[in-house]
Structure formats: C-alpha cells, structure tokens
C-alpha cells in the first residue's frame, strides 16, 4: 500500500480535487479556490495526516500501535495521548451502547466470514471467540494499556471518521476557504461553498455495485457544515435459508443484529460522532430509525 502514496490534483468545478488512496478507500479533498499551490498544500496535509493515522492504528500493519497492543500477550504497553483519547472515546461508546459497540469484538471475524455465502459458524466457534471479547477486561490509563492474551482491539469502526475530523482541524489552520474531506464516503466540510452554497454529496446506493440488477440512483445530500458518515456494507453478509445475516455483530451474543437497515447515513457536527451514531443505530436492529428519530438526529436509512 505504501508504495502507492501519491496525491493527484485535478480541476473540479471552480476549484481542485486532490485524490489519494488510504484505509483501503478512495479519498478526496475538494477545495474551492483557483490557487493551485494552496490546493496542493491542503491535499498534502490531509493525505499525510490520514496516512499517519492509518499507519498508527491499522490492525493490518504489524508495526502499528494497534498491532503492538494486540501482540502484547498480556504485557502493559505504553501509549501516547492520542491513543489514550481514542481508547477513552471507545470506552464512552461502549458505555453509551450498553456493550453493543465494543472495539474488542473484531475477533469475531475469526468465526464469521461475510463473503455472501451461506456458511454460518457453529455456536461453539462463536463462544470460543466471545471469551476474548469484553471491553471491561481491558485496563488502560493515560500512560499504558494492558490487554489479556488473545484479546485484540480494532479501531476500524472509528479510525476513518477520526481521520476526517483530524483532517478538517488541520485544514482550518491553513485556510478559511471551503474544503470537503471525503475518506471513502465518510466526510466533513469546513464550511459551505462560497456565497453560502452547500456542497452536494452523493451517497452511493448499497446496491450500486451489487449483482447486475438495474442500477439504483445515488442519493444526493447538500451539506453546508458538519459531517456525514455511513455505516453498513451491503456487500458483506451471509445468506442462509433465505435469511440475511448482516456483518453488524452484537458484541454481547456474537451473532449478527437482526432486521438492521442495510446502511445508515447520519449527519452530525463531527464525523466520528456521525459514524458512531450510524453504527449504534444499526445495532438497534429494527429500531434503528426510531433510535435516531428520538434523538432528533438527521439520517437516511436504506433497508
């Protein structure tokens, strides 16, 4: 991946688009300016920040802080302030979701393979994984973290959204001009476009790349401030006996959440907020929409 770390610049409407790859997603920065130098600089700053976060928290990268923690085998690992703040945020999410959202639940992947097939794991396989799931067993403080042997943490549910928010903070230090940061569909803007025109954002339909059925239209959302994140992935599921098993897992039972929307898009002041709200909504299953409606949060769900 790292040999592909390039930022390309393209004209886009009355400004520039800076494109790069990170976190297994196409990423894009849009800036409304004719100043090419500024555009290049903003693109570099954003890409470098996103790559930094990817290197630090990717569970695929054996050198990442995440991997070091996961390979610690019960030893205390010292952490920096940023990692502490992220763990702290994960803690809040665990508490607020009453245990449904748990960054130690990634290990359930060993039982579940959401490849569109029909092979369900056995209850014994799930139970084996579940013995390594449980956020309350993780001990951490501002200086260090201790993870029981066999347990893993995964920032996958937070990392991309966090990178969007970090990018926006850095961009605002560089320029007052309108900028949009889009990391594979999770995105935020610094402000409305000049003369107060909102950004037009296309949200890909879950079936857009599905099996050859008629191409459904994308949804267009106008965003003039704040952020937007989508949870759910229509391509990751299992289908057995006509029943669809989504990849959204209940961290307490180890089984997929039933009757959850296929995707949930949420708008919030910060991207990480939008992302966690979208995920928490999916974890409510059939009550996903009600959960967000009651909190007067704007969302678009697709079932």
């Amino acid at each position, binding site marked *: 991946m790292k040999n592909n770390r390039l930022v390309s610049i393209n004209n886009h409407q009355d400004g520039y688009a800076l494109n790069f790859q990170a976190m297994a997603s196409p990423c894009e920065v849009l800036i409304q300016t004719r100043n090419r130098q500024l555009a290049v600089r903003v693109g570099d700053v954003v890409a470098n920040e996103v790559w930094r976060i990817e290197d630090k928290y990717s569970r695929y990268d054996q050198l990442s802080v995440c991997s070091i923690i996961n390979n610690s085998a019960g030893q205390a690992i010292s952490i920096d302030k940023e990692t502490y703040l992220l763990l702290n945020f994960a803690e809040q999410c665990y508490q607020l979701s009453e245990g449904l959202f748990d960054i130690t639940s990634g290990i359930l992947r060993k039982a579940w393979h959401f490849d569109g097939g029909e092979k369900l794991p056995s209850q014994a396989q799930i139970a084996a994984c579940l013995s390594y799931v449980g956020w309350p067993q993780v001990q951490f403080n501002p200086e260090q973290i201790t993870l029981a042997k066999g347990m893993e943490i995964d920032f996958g549910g937070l990392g991309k959204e*966090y990178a969007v928010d970090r990018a926006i903070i850095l961009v605002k230090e560089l320029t*007052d001009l309108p900028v949009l940061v889009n990391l594979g569909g999770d995105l935020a803007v610094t402000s409305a476009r*000049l003369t107060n025109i909102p950004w037009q954002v296309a949200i890909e339909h879950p079936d857009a790349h599905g099996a050859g059925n008629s191409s459904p239209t994308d949804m267009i959302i106008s965003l*003039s401030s704040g952020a937007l994140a989508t949870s759910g992935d229509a391509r990751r599921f299992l289908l057995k006996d006509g029943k669809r098993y989504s990849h959204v897992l209940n961290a307490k039972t180890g089984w997929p959440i039933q009757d959850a929307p296929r995707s949930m898009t949420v708008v919030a002041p910060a991207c990480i907020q939008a992302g966690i709200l979208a995920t928490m909504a999916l974890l409510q299953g059939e009550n996903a929409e009600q959960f967000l409606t009651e909190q007067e949060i704007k969302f678009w769900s697709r079932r």
Partner: protein
Amino acid sequence: MMRNKADNKNIKAALTIATAALLGGNSTVSAETVNSTDDSAWEFDSAFLFYSEADRVSASEAIFNAKKTFEDDEVLNLKLTVDALTGASANGAVAQPNVQTFTRPSGNGQYDVAPGDTPLDDTFRDTRVQINGQWTQTVADDLTASGGVHLSKEYDYLSLGINGNLAIDFDRKNTTFSLGFSYFQDTFTPEGGIPKPFASMLIGDSSDPGWDEEFAKTRIGSEDDKTTTDILLGITQVINRRMIMQFNYSYSMVDGYLTDPFKIMTVVDNDGLAQDYVYESRPDSRVKQSFYAQSLYHFDTTVLDVSYRYMWDDWEITSHTIDSRFRIPLSDSFGTESYLQPHFRFYQQGAADFYRPFMMENDPKPAFASADYRIGEMTAYTLGIKYGRLINNGHELSFRLEYYRQTPTDAGFDEPGVLKEVELYPSIDAIIAQVTYSF
C-alpha cells in the same frame, strides 16, 4: 434494546462531550444539510406576489425561474414574470374644493373627481410579460463572464435589453472585481398617442363629431422611445469567515422620451382654483449615478444584511436608501430548517428641479415641469417579515408580508387660496404579500 426517550437524548449529549474530548473543543460545530434526490437537474423557483395600495393600484405578479448548472459550472437562468395591474393612479392634478372633470388619456371619455379628493385616473389596467435569459460561465481561471437578454411587453410598452458582466477574482477569491454593462431600448405607444408638452387637456363631449380632430391637436405622435445605458463597477471583499462587503458604483444614461404621457398638471389662479390642466414635460435626457455599499455578517446562527445606496442625477434628485434584513433560524418545531427574516427599509428622496405640485397661471412657463409625486420630495419605509422552511424533499417554501408607506413631503411651495384646504401630498399605504416555492 428499547430505551426511553430521555436515555437516548443523553446519548447524543454524551457523544458531543466525548467528541469534544477527543478532538478538542473547537471542533464541535453544527451540521446543516438538505437532501435532494437528483443532482444536475433544473432548479425551479416560483413566486406569487400581491401588492395593493389603499384605494389605488393593485398588482399581482407571478414569477417562474428556472436554473440549470452544467458540468463545467456554466449556469443558464431563465425567468418569466407576468404582472397584472389594476386600479387607479394619481394623474398629477391637485385636489380642488369642487368636482373636477378630466379626459381619459386615450381621449375616449371623461371621469369626475369628487371635491377634496386627489385626482386618480381609474383606467389604469395593464398586463406585463417579462422574459429574461442569462448565461454565466468561467472563461479563465479567476474570470467569470455573463451575458443576458431581456424582453418586456405591455399593451403599450415594449422593452428590449442586453447585458454583459465580467467578474475577476483576486487573492484566492477573497476579492472579486466586477464590471457590468447593460443597454435597453424602450418603445412607448400609449393609447391616444403622445401628448404635446404643456398642451391643455381637451375637456368636453368626446362623442362630438369635432372631438377627434380637436383631441389630435394636443398630440405630437403615436409613439416615442428611449434608450438606457448602464455601467456598473463593483467590488466584493471577503473580510473574514463571517463578513462579506460589497461596493458598487453605477452610471446610467437615459435618452429619449422620459415624460409620462398620462400625467398632467393643474394651472391655478391666485386663489388656488384650477384654470387649466396641461400635459407635463420632462427633459429628454437624464444621467443617474449611484453608490451602493452592502455588508453581510454571519453571527453564530443569524445573518445580518445591511445596505445603503446614495443616488444622484442631473435632474437634481438625490436619494438615500437604507435596507436591512436579519435572518433568524428557528428550532425545528417551527418547521425543518425554518427561519424568520424581519426586513426594514427606509427611503428618502429630494425633488427634481422641475418638480412642482401645480403651476401658477401668471408665472412664466418653465422649460420643464412635472407634478408626478414620484419625482417629488418624499420619505418611505417598508416593514416586513418573511418566514421560510423546508418541506418534503428539501424544497423551500416561504411567505413574505410587508407594509409600505410612502409620504410625499412639501418641498417649500407656496399654497395659494383653496390649496391650503386640500391635501397636496397624500401618502400611500401598501401591503405586499408573497409566496415563494423552490423545487
């Protein structure tokens, strides 16, 4: 998994705090969105406006605007406006202590005005159709060009116009300099023809066999025209994230027939009694200049828009206009993305050098004279409120209600005899109501 409502509210608030802890306090700004189902389609605005002056003119206006943005940000804007006017408008004569009889501008028939009443011609009725087309595109980095055509047709009036505009951006678009030009050619074909300046209004029996011949003697032709050339220089400056300022200077030259063929003046004797009614006469050119400054300021949630215009011309008319709007977002319980926008406008105008409310019988005849209150001394203000909200699919619906009061004032003319007893400067009250729907 069911939670009660209070718990869920806590989730939102707790997440906001958690996010602030993670990202730093300054990052928790607001989120504003509108969703729509398709992207590059036409955008439409429709508006219906009703304007009514107490006892005078009523106007209904329907506006339909269509806008399309093409791939490279070219914008095509088409606008259709249809107005219908009915009612009575001041004919320029002064009120008298006795009944007054006037001939209609067409020469077909007379109308009477009661003692003490400001003479109004109640045959005012017209329908106007106006079409505007505008094309805007980027021609180079930092350079936007725009060109348009205009056509306006009334029963007795045709206006054709073209315009062009260039906008150049500097300093990362923080500064925009614009240069505008427009040219209009208007043709006036009033029913009954163009009256001869200062000719006496023929009053009598319009069914008399000699009437048409006599009436024709007060006319100089069937149509006349005028041209208007406007040049505009403007600068828009982004002051900071919250504030934008704009400054414009405009220079406008109007040449041709600038007289109002429907307006007359009363010629009075030393007792203020009407002796004659003569058609008004205005110069055949006018040069207007104006300076305009506007400031838009975004507070945290509200937006204040204040502007000032100073206009002056070679008819010695000067005017000051202060216009302000304040946009206040409302909570969603008043409608999705709803807002209230109070509006206040103040206008003050000095009279043209040839304006006079009436003429004295024994005074030497001036080169030009008009008693049209619209070029006399006046103040006016508008108070209004607008409410807008989004309805399903992000379409905006808004309502505007305004009250307008225009008060002509005495610029210091002596009022002989009976003119002291009548209202020479009647004020006008009007209500404006508008509904706009964007889709």
